[in-house]
C-alpha cells in the first residue's frame, strides 16, 4: 500500500485491489492481531501471575483458540479469490448493502465477525472467572498484579460490547440475504443504526485492545525502574474509569453525520473527560521512571517509547474529540495518523517489549540485547518518520482510503517520507523477528528470575512446568519476591510450603475478594470436544454463507452433540465434601 502511495498517480494496484487490501489490513490488525495477541499473553501468564495451576476453564480456552483460528481462515478464504471484504473495517451501509456491493465480499466479513465474536466472548468469560476464582490464597483483590486489571477490565467490556457488533453484522447479513429492512432506507430502515451499533462496540473495543497493553507496561516497567509502580490504586481505578467512560463516547466517531448539537456536545465532553484517567496512567509511569533507578534494557526502551507515543496519540485524540476540529479532520490522514499512533504506540510497542521481557520465561532463553536495542531504535525511528507526517498530509486535506492522488495536490513529499518511514519500521520488525528466532536457538539459558522481578511467574522455573507451581503459593503482598527489600506489610509470602494437591489435576479455588481457599478444583482431562465444537460452528457459518440451509441445521445439531459430550458428567470430577478430621497445626496435603 505504501508503495502505491509513495508517488502520485501510481498504478501498482487497481482501485478494487487497494480497497480489499486496506480493508483486510484494518480487519487483520484490529480484529485478528491486536486483541488476540493480548489474550495470548494473558492466557499464558495469568495462571502464573495469579499463582494458579490453570485458567478456570481450560477447555473453553481451547475452544476460544479453535474458533479464532477458523474465523481467521474464514475471513481470509475469499482473499485469494479476489472477493475479500472491501468497504473499510467499519463497513458502513448503505455502501455495504446488497444494492451497491453485490459480491460475497461483505457476507464473508459479516459472518466471519460473528464467528470471531464467539471466540472473543468465551475468552473474556474465562478471564473473568479465572481472576475471581483461581487466585492463590492470600492474593486479595488489592494485591493482584496491576497487569491483571487491564485484561480484566477489557474482558468485562468485551462481554458487554461484542454482542453489539455481532448483532450489527448479523442484521446486515439478514438484510443482504433474506431481504429484511433494518438498514434499507426505502422501507424505513436507517443507515445510522449501523453506525450506532458499530461504534457502541467499536469504542469500548479500542480500550479493550489498549488497556491490557497498558497493563503490560504498568506491570513490567517498574521492574526496570527497580521500584514498585507509583500509584497502584490510582492506576487500577483509572483503568476501570477509562472503560466506564469509554462506553459513553461512541458518537465521537459520528460527529459529521448530522446528529443534534446537544448530543455532539455531550459526547465531545465525555471524550475530553476520558483524557483524565488516561493521564493518571501517564503520570504514574513518568513518576515511576523519575523516582526509580532505570536500567536500560531492551524492554525498558520499548515501554518508555510507548509512553512517548501514547502522549502524541493521546493529544491528537483530544484534538479530534473537539467537534469543530473533528469536522475539519474527519476522513483525512490525520485520523489515520491518530489511530496508528494509538494502536501501534499503545499496542505494538508494549507487546514487543513484553515479548522481550517474558521471552526467558516462555522459552528458557534470553533474547539478544544488542539486536534488541537495534530493533527498538529502528522501529521507533521508522514509526515516527512514517506516521508523524500523516498528521501533515491530513491537515493538507488528503482524504483517507484513496488509492492514488494527483501530483499537484502538495502531498508528494509527505507521502514519500511516510512510505520510506514505513519501510524502516518494517525493517525494525524484521530485526525483532530475526532476534526472536536466533535467541530461540542460541540465546543464553535463562535463570528463574533474570530481571529480578517481583511477581509470582518469576518464582517458577524458566520455562515453567505444565502444572506451573509444585505447591500452591501463599501470597502476603503485591510483590511476593521483593518483600525482604520493601518491608511492606506484616506477613511474608510462602512459596515453598502449602497445598500440594497431587491427586490428579487439582488446583485451589478461592473466594472472589479475599482469596481465602474455598474449594479444591478438579481440572478436566484433555478432550477433543472443543475442537469439534469449533469446527462444526465454523462449518455452520460456512453453510450460512453458501445458503446451504440443511447443512447449517445439521451442523447446529453436531454443535449441540459436541457440547453435550463436553459437559457430560465425569465420575472423577464429582463434587463432594470429604469427611477428614484435621489435627490442629497440620498442613493440608
Amino acid at each position, binding site marked *: 500500500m505504501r508503495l502505491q502511495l509513495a508517488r502520485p498517480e501510481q498504478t501498482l494496484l487497481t482501485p478494487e485491489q487497494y480497497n480489499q487490501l486496506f480493508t483486510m489490513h484494518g480487519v487483520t490488525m484490529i480484529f485478528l492481531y491486536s486483541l488476540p495477541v493480548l489474550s495470548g499473553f494473558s492466557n499464558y501468564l495469568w495462571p502464573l501471575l495469579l499463582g494458579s495451576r490453570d485458567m*478456570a*476453564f481450560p477447555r473453553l480456552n481451547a475452544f476460544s483458540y479453535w474458533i479464532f483460528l477458523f474465523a481467521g481462515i474464514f475471513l481470509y478464504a475469499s482473499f485469494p479469490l479476489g472477493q475479500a471484504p472491501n468497504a473499510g473495517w467499519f463497513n458502513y451501509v448503505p455502501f455495504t448493502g446488497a444494492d451497491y456491493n453485490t459480491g460475497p465480499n461483505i457476507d464473508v466479513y459479516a459472518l466471519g465477525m460473528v464467528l470471531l465474536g464467539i471466540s472473543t*466472548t468465551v475468552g*473474556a*468469560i*474465562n478471564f*473473568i*472467572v479465572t481472576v475471581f*476464582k483461581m487466585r492463590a*490464597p*492470600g492474593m486479595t483483590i488489592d494485591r493482584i498484579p496491576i497487569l491483571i486489571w487491564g485484561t480484566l477490565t477489557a474482558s468485562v467490556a468485551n*462481554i*458487554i460490547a*461484542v*454482542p*453489539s457488533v*455481532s*448483532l450489527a453484522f448479523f*442484521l446486515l447479513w*439478514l438484510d443482504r440475504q433474506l431481504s*429484511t*429492512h*433494518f438498514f*434499507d432506507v426505502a*422501507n*424505513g*430502515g*436507517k443507515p445510522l*443504526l449501523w453506525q*450506532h*451499533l458499530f461504534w457502541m462496540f467499536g469504542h469500548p473495543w479500542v480500550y479493550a485492545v489498549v488497556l491490557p497493553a497498558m497493563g503490560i507496561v504498568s506491570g513490567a516497567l517498574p521492574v526496570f525502574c527497580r521500584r514498585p509502580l507509583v500509584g497502584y490504586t490510582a492506576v487500577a481505578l483509572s483503568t476501570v474509569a477509562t472503560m466506564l467512560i469509554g462506553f459513553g463516547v461512541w458518537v465521537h466517531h459520528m460527529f459529521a453525520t448530522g446528529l443534534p448539537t446537544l448530543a455532539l456536545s455531550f459526547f465531545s465532553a465525555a471524550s475530553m473527560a476520558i483524557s483524565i484517567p488516561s493521564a493518571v496512567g501517564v503520570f504514574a509511569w513518568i513518576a515511576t521512571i523519575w523516582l526509580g533507578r532505570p536500567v536500560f534494557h531492551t524492554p525498558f526502551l520499548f515501554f518508555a517509547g510507548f509512553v512517548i507515543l501514547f502522549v502524541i496519540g493521546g493529544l491528537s485524540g483530544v484534538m479530534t474529540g473537539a467537534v469543530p476540529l473533528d469536522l475539519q479532520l474527519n476522513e483525512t490522514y490525520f485520523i489515520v495518523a491518530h489511530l496508528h499512533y494509538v494502536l501501534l504506540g499503545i499496542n505494538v510497542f508494549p507487546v514487543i517489549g513484553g515479548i522481550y521481557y517474558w521471552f526467558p520465561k516462555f522459552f528458557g532463553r534470553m533474547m539478544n540485547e544488542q539486536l534488541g536495542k537495534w530493533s527498538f531504535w529502528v522501529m521507533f525511528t521508522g514509526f515516527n518518520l512514517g506516521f508523524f507526517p500523516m498528521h501533515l498530509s491530513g491537515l493538507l486535506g488528503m482524504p483517507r482510503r484513496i488509492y492514488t492522488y494527483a501530483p499537484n495536490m502538495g502531498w508528494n513529499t509527505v507521502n514519500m517520507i511516510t512510505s520510506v518511514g514505513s519501510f524502516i519500521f518494517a525493517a525494525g520488525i524484521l530485526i525483532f523477528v530475526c532476534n526472536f528466532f536466533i535467541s530461540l536457538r542460541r540465546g543464553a539459558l535463562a535463570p528463574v528470575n533474570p530481571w529480578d522481578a517481583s511477581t509470582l511467574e518469576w518464582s517458577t522455573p524458566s520455562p515453567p512446568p505444565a502444572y506451573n507451581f509444585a505447591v500452591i503459593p*501463599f501470597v502476603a503482598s503485591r510483590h511476593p519476591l521483593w518483600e525482604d527489600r520493601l518491608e511492606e506489610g506484616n*506477613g511474608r509470602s*510462602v512459596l515453598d*510450603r*502449602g497445598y500440594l494437591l497431587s491427586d490428579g489435576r487439582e488446583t*485451589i*479455588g478461592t473466594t472472589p475478594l479475599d482469596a*481465602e*481457599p*474455598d*474449594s*479444591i*478444583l*478438579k481440572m478436566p482431562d484433555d478432550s477433543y470436544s472443543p475442537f469439534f465444537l469449533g469446527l462444526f460452528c465454523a462449518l455452520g457459518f460456512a453453510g450460512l454463507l453458501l445458503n446451504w440451509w440443511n447443512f447449517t441445521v445439521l451442523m447446529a445439531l453436531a454443535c*449441540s452433540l459436541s457440547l*453435550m459430550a463436553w*459437559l457430560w*458428567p465425569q465420575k472423577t*470430577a*464429582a*463434587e*463432594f*465434601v*470429604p*469427611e477428614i478430621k*484435621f489435627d*490442629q*497445626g497440620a498442613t*493440608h496435603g
Partner: protein
Amino acid sequence: MVEMLKPEAALPIGGVDKRANGRWGVMALITTEASLFGYLLFTYFYLASQTERRWPPEGLPSLMMPGINTLILLSSSVFVWACERSIQRSRLVSSLAWLGLANGFGICFVVIQLKEWGKKKYDMTSDLYGSLYFTITGFHMLHVVIGLVILMTLLVWIKLGYLDAKRYSAVSIGGLYWHFVDVVWLFVFTSLYLLPYLS
C-alpha cells in the same frame, strides 16, 4: 495470615453450590446474552422512534394468547426451581416430575408462539416492523429451544443417576439459564406487546 493454610474444616472437592466455577461462567454468559437482547431492543426503539409510519403497522397487538403464553413460561421457571429443591433433598422422583413439567410447559410456549407467528399477516421481508418483530422474537425462540435442550439433558442426567443431593450444581446452573430466558421474555413482551398501548 499463614493460618489460612491450616483450614478448620476440609475443603469441598469440585465446584459445589454457589462456589462452582460453572455458575460463574454461566452468569457471565447471561451478562453477554442480556447485552445482546439489550442491543436488539435498542434497535427496535431506535427505529420505532425514527419512523414516520403507523407503529405497529397492523394496529395494536392482541394480548390474550401472548399473555397466557407469558404465564406458561413463567410457571415453567417455578417448576425448575422446585426441581432444584427436590434434588437437594434427595427426592429424585419428584425432581424428575418437576423437571418434566417444566419441559412440557416450555414446549407449550414454543407451540403457542409458532401459532402466533402463523397468524401474522406479515413476515420478515414485508416491512420494517416485520423484520424487527420476527428477528427479536426469533432470537428469543432460539434461546428457548437451547434452554429446552439443556432441561432435557438434565432430565436424562437425573434419570441416569448422575446427579443427586451431593452433586446437583448442573441443575442449578442449567436452571439459572432457563430463568434468564424467561426474564428476557418479560422485556420482549413489554416492549413489543405492552408499550404500544401506552403511546
